[in-house]
């Protein structure tokens, strides 16, 4: 177990190093001059050159990347060009809002997706199957910005149940979360359904029924825990998609989280923020996958590390 954790941590460091390298190469290759961005259109060439020197932008690539890595290790993600504040501070300020949204969005996916998956597994007939496949295909195909705008119009504007947009308490999180839940739930329900159908046909389910167990007990006590294993695997990879989705959703709902900040930074070519948010997202995904790998052992006793 300990050696597994150490190995996994080592692997995670390598992954994060690769991501840092790629984002750095991309930022390096972008044809924009940070010194010019900071000083504005009216600064003289001398002023710009002086700032380039001060920022170390005239140094060779390897030297610059080395500096960048050292800074990251010390928790310094650089300064925003436009706001002149540390990127780490900016991310830290918006982290709770984004975290709250991510959690609600993920829970919405599960709350919508898992019961439908179980229900469909029990009604595994041709007709219901076709309807379910169609509906879930629509769910998967709908773009989040479209669902978001529809919900915003009908639920927030017309029915006035939730705020139309902005950031605040839980009521501001529900609609964006629901937007993600509706589009993402279909994956979970499809996966759980097929996994559940397999499990329900297994010998140990027959054993449970032969003991006189009632359907609810068979499904929740025996089948669900076995069927959920592939769903958890998907859930781990979904966290990456969740982050991508949240960037769009935060923008649509004017929700001031990390995603919105990233979109603004891209529009303004505020490179340190872009690099910082990408790296942060990577850390988040890597950490989550790590946690899920440890979770397997708790759910399935056959898995040892």
């Amino acid at each position, binding site marked *: 177990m300990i050696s597994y954790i150490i190995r996994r941590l080592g692997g995670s460091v390598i992954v994060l190093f690769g991501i840092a390298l790629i984002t750095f190469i991309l930022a390096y290759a972008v044809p924009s001059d940070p010194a010019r961005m900071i000083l504005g259109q009216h600064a003289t060439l001398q002023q710009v050159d002086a700032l380039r020197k001060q920022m170390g932008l005239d140094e060779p690539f390897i030297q610059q990347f080395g500096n960048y890595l050292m800074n990251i290790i010390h928790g310094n993600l650089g300064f925003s060009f436009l706001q002149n504040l540390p990127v780490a501070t900016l991310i830290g300020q918006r982290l709770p809002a984004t975290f709250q949204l991510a959690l609600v969005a993920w829970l919405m996916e599960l709350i919508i997706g898992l019961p439908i998956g179980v229900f469909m597994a029990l009604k*595994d007939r041709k007709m219901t199957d076709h309807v379910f496949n169609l509906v879930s295909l629509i769910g998967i195909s709908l773009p989040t910005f479209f669902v978001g705008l529809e919900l915003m119009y009908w639920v927030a504007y017309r029915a006035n149940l939730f705020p139309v947009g902005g950031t605040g308490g839980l009521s501001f999180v529900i609609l964006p979360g629901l937007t993600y839940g509706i589009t993402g739930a279909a994956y979970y329900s499809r996966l759980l359904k097929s996994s559940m159908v397999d499990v329900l*046909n*297994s*010998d*140990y389910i*027959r*054993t*449970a*029924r*032969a*003991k*006189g*167990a*009632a359907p609810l*007990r068979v499904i929740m006590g*025996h089948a669900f*825990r*076995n069927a959920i294993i592939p769903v958890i695997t998907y859930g781990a990879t979904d966290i990456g998609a969740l982050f991508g989705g949240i960037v769009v959703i935060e923008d649509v709902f004017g929700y001031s989280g990390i995603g919105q900040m990233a979109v603004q930074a891209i529009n303004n070519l505020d490179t340190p923020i872009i690099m910082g948010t990408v790296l942060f997202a990577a850390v988040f995904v890597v950490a989550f996958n790590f946690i899920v790998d440890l979770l397997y052992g708790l*759910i*399935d*006793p*056959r898995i040892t590390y």
Partner: protein
Amino acid sequence: MSTILSVEHLTTSFGTTSGYVPAIDDVSFHIDKGETLGIVGESGCGKSVTSLSIMKLLTANGKIQSGSIQFEDRDLVKLSEADMRKVRGNDIAMIFQEPMTSLNPVHKIGKQITESLRIHKGMRGPAARARAIELLNLVGIPRAAEIVDEYPHRLSGGMRQRVMIAIAMACDPKLLIADEPTTALDVTIQAQILDLMRKLKAERQMAMMLITHDLGVVAEMCDRVVVMYAGKVVEQGNVRDIFRNPTHPYTIGLLNSIPKLDERKTRLDSIPGAVPSIENMPAGCRFAARCEHATQRCADADPGLRDVSGDYQARCVLV
């Protein structure tokens, strides 16, 4: 002796693309209290469908179409699903062929044994746990107090089948249905499991329905035997009568296909051909196509079960 289970004219069908097709057709037999009944036949002859019909655990496309299953004073065919659940695992318990996959991999052994105690007897906590350990001891599992907290994947096939037997014994069933309980096990383990089942049956005066394709197991374990072929009972009677004096050509073929220790042979005997598919059952005797004694009248009409003597019947024109 009084009868505990009486199956009368049971027909169970499965939905296929060409409508409902009977997998077992007009099957009748009975089991007396404390008796062991063997059900033998090749794969696909309807042995397992018979047992799953009694438990009403058929898959969604299977359905009992006619007949009755009288257990004590109730007709199981007419029982509601809720009432049937009170019978399963309580009055009638069942063990299956595949011990490796019949236990839930994510639950501890103890939890799986106590489940039917929780369902039927409302037993919980330390009392249930103590009973689980007692049951593990009963089925001859060493270190029962430790095994109760183990997961199934830590146990061998033979041990898992013992656990399955412990689960079946939990509520002291009146009837145990064992569907090929030793088929998946090594020969030495088979003998141990059969010994255990025989011992438990004797101690508890439990009736047993033993499904097998192994006539050796039948000779060893059973009082009476029902031979099934292609969904029908072709011969039934006392084990001694049938082994000494088999009547139906199919039973004779089955007995001949057992290799004997005192014979030198280069090829083992077998019955030529295969069981007809349930969608294409012949109108007459279902064994006719594979039978060396078959005549035109065998193909024309099913001969029906005929009395050979007393409690001994065979479905053959030769009787």
